[in-house]
């Protein structure tokens, strides 16, 4: 007999075999040190140690003042690329599910091409060849600023990954929801915006948040374009001072704090976005 079934009410009036239940049903709270989030403690300690170094150690302080200005580029590139990638991802994700042959195939081709080429290669190609060529073809007189070339490269790449997130999220909404909406006379568009997407957001938000963080981290790849973001700054600092340890650790510190802050924000945002889960059991 399964010892756990003894707790169900329908057998409670039968004589129970004498199981040492109390011991078996010991829960996590009994051994707090097993469930305590030690990882937070470890991560927190690392952050504190690095912070102390940056504040009190001269080399680290020098590294900090050389690297930190790159945060403006890193953060603005992250937000811009994420915003564009989300729009692209929404379009390509819905495009894939569209009945329209043209949209469907364009979306699929875009996703396959991007996913078939390494990220660093795409950054070179898009920022240094595709964007200049297109802007020339469109007759734009001045060349596109490096910031935007870098952002477009990252956005195009992540748009393809985010498209798959949207597609999966939209497909996770049961077809009955669409049928209920349409049978009430709602248009396709209203059904998508008021019924499907809000529900799809449940499964879209967590991986979308992951990609937001991934974009933040991957802005470091943009250093190959020579833009002055955090990584580029750190490498320049290392090259001119030879204080490699201070340079690299300070860079890690800045990224780590940024990523931790962003993931805390995403968790808060996810919780805020699903009020219907309040009564969840």
């Amino acid at each position: 007999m399964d010892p756990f079934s003894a707790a169900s009410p329908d057998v409670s009036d039968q004589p129970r075999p004498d199981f040492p239940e109390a011991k078996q049903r010991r829960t996590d709270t009994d051994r707090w040190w097993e469930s305590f989030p030690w990882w937070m403690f470890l991560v927190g300690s690392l952050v504190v140690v690095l912070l102390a170094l940056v504040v009190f150690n001269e080399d680290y302080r020098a590294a900090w003042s050389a690297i930190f200005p790159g945060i403006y580029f890193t953060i603005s590139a992250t937000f811009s690329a994420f915003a564009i990638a989300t729009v692209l991802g929404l379009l390509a994700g819905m495009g894939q599910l569209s009945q329209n042959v043209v949209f469907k195939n364009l979306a699929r081709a875009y996703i396959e091409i991007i996913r078939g080429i390494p990220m660093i290669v795409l950054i070179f190609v898009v920022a240094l060849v595709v964007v200049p060529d297109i802007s020339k073809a469109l007759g734009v007189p001045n060349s596109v600023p490096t910031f935007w070339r870098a952002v477009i490269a990252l956005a195009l790449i992540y748009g393809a990954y985010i498209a798959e997130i949207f597609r999966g999220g939209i497909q996770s909404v049961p077809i009955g929801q669409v049928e209920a909406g349409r049978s009430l006379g709602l248009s396709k568009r209203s059904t998508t915006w008021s019924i499907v997407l809000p529900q799809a957001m449940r499964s879209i938000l967590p991986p979308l948040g992951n990609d937001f963080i991934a974009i933040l981290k991957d802005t470091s790849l943009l250093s190959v374009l020579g833009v002055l973001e955090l990584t580029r700054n750190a490498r320049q600092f290392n090259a001119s001072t030879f204080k490699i340890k201070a340079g690299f650790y300070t860079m890690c510190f800045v990224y780590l704090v940024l990523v931790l802050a962003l993931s805390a924000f995403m968790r808060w945002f996810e919780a805020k976005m699903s009020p219907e889960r309040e009564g969840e059991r």
Partner: protein
Amino acid sequence: MKIVEVRGLTKTFNETIHAVRGVDLSVAQGEVVVIVGPSGCGKSTILRCINLLETPTAGDVWINGVNLVDDETDLDLVRAEVGMVFQQFNLFPHLTVLRNVTLAQMKVRGRTQEKAESVALAQLERVGIPDKANAYPRQLSGGQQQRVAIARALAMDPKVMLFDEPTSALDPEMIKEVLDVMRDLAADGMTMIVVTHEMGFARAAASRVGFVDEGKIVEIGTPAEVFDNPQQERTQLFLNQVLHH
């Protein structure tokens, strides 16, 4: 003029599955037509063709004189006239009960929020759960959810209500509360087409009962005619199976 007029309705899936094979049906104002038949015989497909959730392979469907199969027809507007209640309720889980009932009123009927809410509360009252307006669907029992789904459809002032096995997903003790609401609706003169296995409801509330087998209406008549004196052998076999088990 009939509220629903179906002529030569045919639906073939993937060119091989003949779900509906030439159905004619006309439903007058205030009639309650109950459709019965064995599993897979095409009952759901017939209903889903009546509001064009499925596009018929052939045939015509008129709602209140408007041909749905005509390309010129604004389907969204006609669908608003046809309420549909599903086996699985299909409430919108991310919206409160009240928003479930007001959403389409505002977007399709163009009602103000105030007007839509007063209609919603009146319909929730009618189905017996006015106090659940601010709950989310997951906080309700199956029977309550199905009654909200009925209220949601009624709030659009439909000309006809379609029910596809509205009690099949419910626990026995909740079936009655939903059937009672449907019986009240029928008594109020609502035009209804109901697919169900609840023969008691069919006998009590139906104007006509249609027996469907292999995509065709094999026999249709008053409950007394079909239940007590079925003309077709297939109807007799089916009724023997469902009534004596």
